[in-house]
């Protein structure tokens, strides 16, 4: 142990470390999308929001020197894009899925355009908290260098779960998602509720993006997201619109993403393409196991355009 050679233990450790490092953007985007979808609308544009968030966080952190200002800027950018989505969707006969796809392209395109001068400079990064102080093994210490955003995300999941269940706001969002007519009968504006839910979702997705550029992998470049935003949106369906399940699903995806490189590093070299595809295979399997032609997905908000 003393020479730092931990052999096969690398794999579980890397999966644990990966679950912590890689999962955060999944977690924020999926929690955000959870709020939006619970209000009866799908925002597929979160991939674009994630990339825009990553870019604006990096830019603001670089210009101001404060990564936390960057995180805030990423959240606000995300909320703005959410407002745009909600605004367009509140017009009559607009399909939210189509708007989402166009906003996804818009967000990534705009981020690449504005982010051009940011590829080279190095911005101030978010700090990490060392939770591995008790261990002598450097690998354990490295795996347990945890970012505050991850902890916030982990705390947010039960809070959202509780809020959906017991608070007035949670009830309103759920009402708008289950039956727009009921919400209207209660005297609430469905569009206003969805606007706020989409903005909140965008805010969280933007913060997820700031984690990518300011912590891990920790710099802005155009391949940064490589589809993580869209994976996270799919994850919400997979997690049955339940914030707690979003948390576990995000951790599983993060761990699965670390599996391919970790196995190669201990010498399991055959079939690495398969291991790299592990997260997607996992999604497919669960989708196949849980789907049924006889009923709609359990837990799906009734107002969602995909279930209606």
């Amino acid at each position, binding site marked *: 142990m003393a*020479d*730092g*050679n*931990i052999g096969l233990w*690398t794999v579980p*450790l*890397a999966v644990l*470390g*990966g679950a912590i*490092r*890689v999962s955060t953007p999944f977690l924020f985007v999926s929690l955000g999308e959870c709020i939006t979808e619970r209000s009866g609308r799908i925002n597929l544009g979160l991939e674009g929001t994630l990339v825009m968030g990553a870019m604006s966080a990096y830019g603001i952190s670089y210009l101001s020197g404060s990564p936390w200002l960057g995180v805030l800027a990423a959240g606000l950018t995300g909320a703005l894009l959410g407002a745009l989505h909600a605004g367009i969707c509140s017009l009559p006969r607009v399909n939210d899925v189509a708007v989402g796809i166009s906003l996804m392209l818009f967000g990534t395109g705009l981020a*690449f355009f504005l982010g*051009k001068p940011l*590829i*080279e400079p*190095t911005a101030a990064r978010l700090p990490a908290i060392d939770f591995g102080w008790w261990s002598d093994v450097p*690998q354990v210490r*490295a*795996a347990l260098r945890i970012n505050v955003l991850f902890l916030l995300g982990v705390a947010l999941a039960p809070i959202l779960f509780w809020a959906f269940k017991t608070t007035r706001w949670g009830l309103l969002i759920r009402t708008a998602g289950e039956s727009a007519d009921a919400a209207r009968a209660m005297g609430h504006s469905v569009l206003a509720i969805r606007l706020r839910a989409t903005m909140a979702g965008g805010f969280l997705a933007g913060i997820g993006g700031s984690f990518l550029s300011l912590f*891990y*992998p*920790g*710099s802005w*470049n*155009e*391949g*940064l997201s*490589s589809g*993580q935003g869209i994976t996270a949106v799919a994850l919400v369906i997979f997690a049955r619109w339940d914030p707690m399940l979003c948390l576990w699903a995000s951790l599983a995806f993060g761990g699965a*993403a*670390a599996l*391919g*490189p*970790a196995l*190669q*590093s*201990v*010498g399991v*070299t*055959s079939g*690495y*393409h398969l291991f*790299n595809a592990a997260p997607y295979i996992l999604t497919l399997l669960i989708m196949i196991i849980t789907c049924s032609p006889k009923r709609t997905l359990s837990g799906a908000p009734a107002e969602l355009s995909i279930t209606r």
Partner: protein
Amino acid sequence: MDFGRISRRHLLQGGAALTLGAAAGLRPAFAAETTIGFIYVGSRDDYGYNQAHAQGAAALKKLPGLKVIEEEKVPETDAVEKTIESMINLDGATLLFPTSFGYYNPHMIKMAAKYPKLRFEHCGGLWSEKDPKNAGSYFGYIDEAQYIAGIVAGYTSKSGKLGFVAAKPIPQVLRNINAFTLGARLANPKATTQVIFTGDWSMPVKEAEATNSLIDQGVDVLTCHVDGPKTMVENAARRGAFVTGYHVNQSPLAPKAYLTGAEWNWEALYPKFVKMLAAGESIPNFYRGGLKEELVKVSPYGEAVSEPARKHADEIKAKFLGDGYTIFKGPLKDNKGNTVITAGTERGQKDPELEKMDYLVEGVIGATS
């Protein structure tokens, strides 16, 4: 309302008139210059492959009488043909550099056949007699620079474990991994290189995970062959490991951790090409070279590089620059124990067999499939 509509129409008319005027006015000025088009597959400031080419393009911009036009993020599909067409027909480009591997066949070949009077230069393709005469392929033997980086890495590593973050097991990548490893074993015969393939040219999260996994395994010097080494360099430096760079000099990203690196030297080559054309000579269709021909270079050594490492590396570098030096010579075994180059055989840099490499040499931990 009515006012708004009229003003908008006027604005459009005005805009169109301006554009026409500008185009008419500027055309003659352009005609006197040679226009050169560069096409990149990614972003031109990625601290990697595309930036190396963009630095070459920037060297041309400094020369008088040349106009350089560039387009980034052109996929390796029909899209590149459209870009080439528009560079030729709209900008009047007469020399084109489609720089990405996948542009060559069939896209660039097709365009070269369609425009036989223009010159096409491709990086990395394998030009053969069947291909149009106005098309050419050039490439640098960057494995020479990787070999020297390997020597430095072999001296610097305390654990004797080196790491290589690679994109795909194609010949050019395998050749770099092998040269790096052979160089390292020159310094430390027990050194091993652990390779991780991420599966694609730009996968920042995978590259970061690969870097972390390698360091967890005790690897203390890393290098890579992906499009943008920035992720690997920054993440390795954060974990306290050393790196050797690739494509361009990444030392500004991690001044303490950066030992040396294998760089392209397109800023030396492209002006050479232009001078050849200006002098009425033709560029050889199949253009290759290494350190000696100034197609590649080695980054300046970092402060962590020890004196014996510098000395040994400089000695080998002098051989490359002088009478020549062969990296791949027999007896050479792959990491499965098969002999790949028999004793007495020397595979010089220009040997086409090396461009078909499909093995990893002894000392590399990893597999090609």
